[in-house]
């Protein structure tokens, strides 16, 4: 930006203070001082000051004008003094013209610069500060429907996406202190570096509010670890996809649902955070159904599957704390989940009986005769959790009970047993076989306060063979 030496003033005709003090600008000019006036709205204002048209606000934006009138003193291209609003003594002092404000009031506050009109900062940042965003611009024709255009380009998951305009992406990026060009993760299957900017674009498309972005970034980091193995999860013929479980204060702050219908539709944060992660895998990573995604059935949770744990109503420590995150911090836990199987028990009033129900129902994850290679999440409802709270059962006590109940004689589980060819290898016929590997059963508390139901989220090939649940703190 090259400003002319001398005095440079920024005004707008719609500002009463500018109208009032305009005679001073004329007088400054008449006094022989080099003066350049930029007008933000009416290129003919002020009459007699030969104003330059800055209705496109380029100069105002580059100078960082916040108030009109603003007077700058410029020496060899550099701003050496700046006055905002009208204070007669200051203007006379800076210009050295003693009667500059003769007949004018001693003081009037200025008006906001047009660069600060609602929505304008984002527009100007796009127009003149576009270097902040590096992504390729894709122009949509005037008569082209932008939603159809995004479908045609393959950017959507089957549902419409929000057009990722520069303004929206810049607003999204305001929710994080991270540099837009910082690489968050290397996203499979194409192993493409995903910047904060690319994540923000997809978060916009998913429908996220800016305050969700830190959760999306944490989920993305967790998903793209080798432990979680989102590549394999994408490529598998099994139904599973990433499930995002959110713990800590961020969940309440951004309005996530951990109560009634927590695993269902209707909450924007739940719906769009999970969707943003899947859109990043689709668009940045290049992972698409029929391409690297080879799922036989898939499941509806592959559009989005994200919910918060109900920590306040829980008798137990939060999942994230159990998995090592400090108490009081926000964290996401990624789980390779294949869908929801609800379970009912309206009769049990003792923890022993209810734990037996849980164990019986958990046996069917993947196949009742297969064990150790499939993880699961048990989502305990408030009415079921009450039974354990009243009996004083800690989560560890429930686990201990489940471990025992979920261990069965290998003879019942080997191939051919029960007339079913599927099953565990024959070598295990003499052993006791636990259903889940150590750490393979996650227990969380969520759901509405009415209903003696809990829910099982079945997993995928577990551990080093497939996916390990991964917990990451959310940095806000």
């Amino acid at each position, binding site marked *: 930006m090259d400003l002319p030496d001398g005095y440079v003033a920024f005004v707008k005709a719609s500002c009463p203070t500018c109208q009032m003090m305009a005679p001073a600008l004329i007088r400054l000019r008449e006094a022989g001082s080099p003066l350049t006036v930029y007008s933000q709205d009416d290129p003919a204002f002020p009459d007699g000051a030969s104003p330059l048209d800055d209705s496109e606000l380029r100069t105002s934006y580059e100078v960082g004008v916040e108030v009109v009138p603003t007077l700058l003193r410029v020496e060899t291209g550099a701003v050496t003094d700046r006055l905002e609003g009208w204070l007669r003594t200051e203007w006379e002092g800076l210009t050295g013209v003693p009667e500059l404000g003769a007949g004018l009031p001693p003081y009037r506050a200025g008006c906001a610069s047009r660069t600060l009109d609602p929505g304008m900062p984002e527009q100007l940042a796009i127009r003149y500060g576009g270097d902040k965003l590096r*992504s390729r*611009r894709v*122009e*949509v024709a005037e008569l*082209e429907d932008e939603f159809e255009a995004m479908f045609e*380009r393959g950017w959507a998951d089957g549902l419409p996406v929000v057009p*990722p*305009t520069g303004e929206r992406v810049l607003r999204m990026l305001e929710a994080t202190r991270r540099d837009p060009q910082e690489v968050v993760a290397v996203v499979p299957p194409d192993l493409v570096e995903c910047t904060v900017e690319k994540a923000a674009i997809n978060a916009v498309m998913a429908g996220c509010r800016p305050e969700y972005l830190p959760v999306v970034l944490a989920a993305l980091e967790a998903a793209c670890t080798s432990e979680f193995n989102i590549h394999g999860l994408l490529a598998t013929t099994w139904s599973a996809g990433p499930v995002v479980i959110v713990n800590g204060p961020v969940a309440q702050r951004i309005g996530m649902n951990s109560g009634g219908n927590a695993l269902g539709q209707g909450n924007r944060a739940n719906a769009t955070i999970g969707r943003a992660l899947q859109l990043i895998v689709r668009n940045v*990573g290049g992972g698409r159904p029929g391409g690297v995604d080879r799922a036989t059935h898939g499941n509806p949770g592959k559009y989005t599957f994200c919910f918060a744990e109900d920590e306040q109503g829980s008798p137990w420590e939060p999942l994230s704390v159990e998995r090592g995150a400090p108490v009081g911090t926000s964290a996401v836990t990624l789980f390779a989940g294949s869908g929801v199987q609800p379970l009912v028990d309206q009769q049990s009033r003792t923890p022993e009986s209810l734990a037996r129900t849980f164990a019986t129902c958990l046996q069917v994850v993947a196949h009742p005769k297969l064990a150790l290679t499939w993880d699961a999440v048990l989502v305990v409802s408030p009415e079921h959790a009450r039974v354990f709270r009243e009996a004083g059962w800690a989560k560890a006590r429930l686990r201990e009970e489940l471990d025992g109940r979920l261990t069965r004689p290998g003879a019942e589980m080997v191939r051919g047993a029960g007339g079913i060819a599927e099953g565990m290898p024959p070598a295990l016929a003499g052993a006791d076989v636990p259903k889940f590997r150590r750490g393979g059963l996650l227990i969380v508390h969520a759901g509405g306060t009415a209903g003696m139901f809990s829910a099982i989220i079945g997993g995928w090939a577990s551990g080093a063979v497939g996916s390990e649940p991964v917990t990451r703190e959310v940095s806000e």
Partner: protein
Amino acid sequence: MTRTELLDPTGERQPAARQRVTRPTSLEGLTVGLLDISKPRGDVFLDRLEELLSGRGVEVLRFRKPTFTKPAPADLRHEIQVKCDAVVEALAD
């Protein structure tokens, strides 16, 4: 509706433009666009092509880029896309 500029959400490994449609095996029943890129004498070539194509019963639509120095505007590309089955672009001087 005002024209929209979107930020590419992809890893940018693919060209932003969409893939070309497959080349038709016959022009029968098709609409052919003739795109003049606004270089001198391109119209001479395209006028003759129009004469030949129209003579064979092919429907012809004429288009013109505002200037040969810049890519065709998105609106023009879209118009050709929705109106034509094939397009011939005259690059001639």
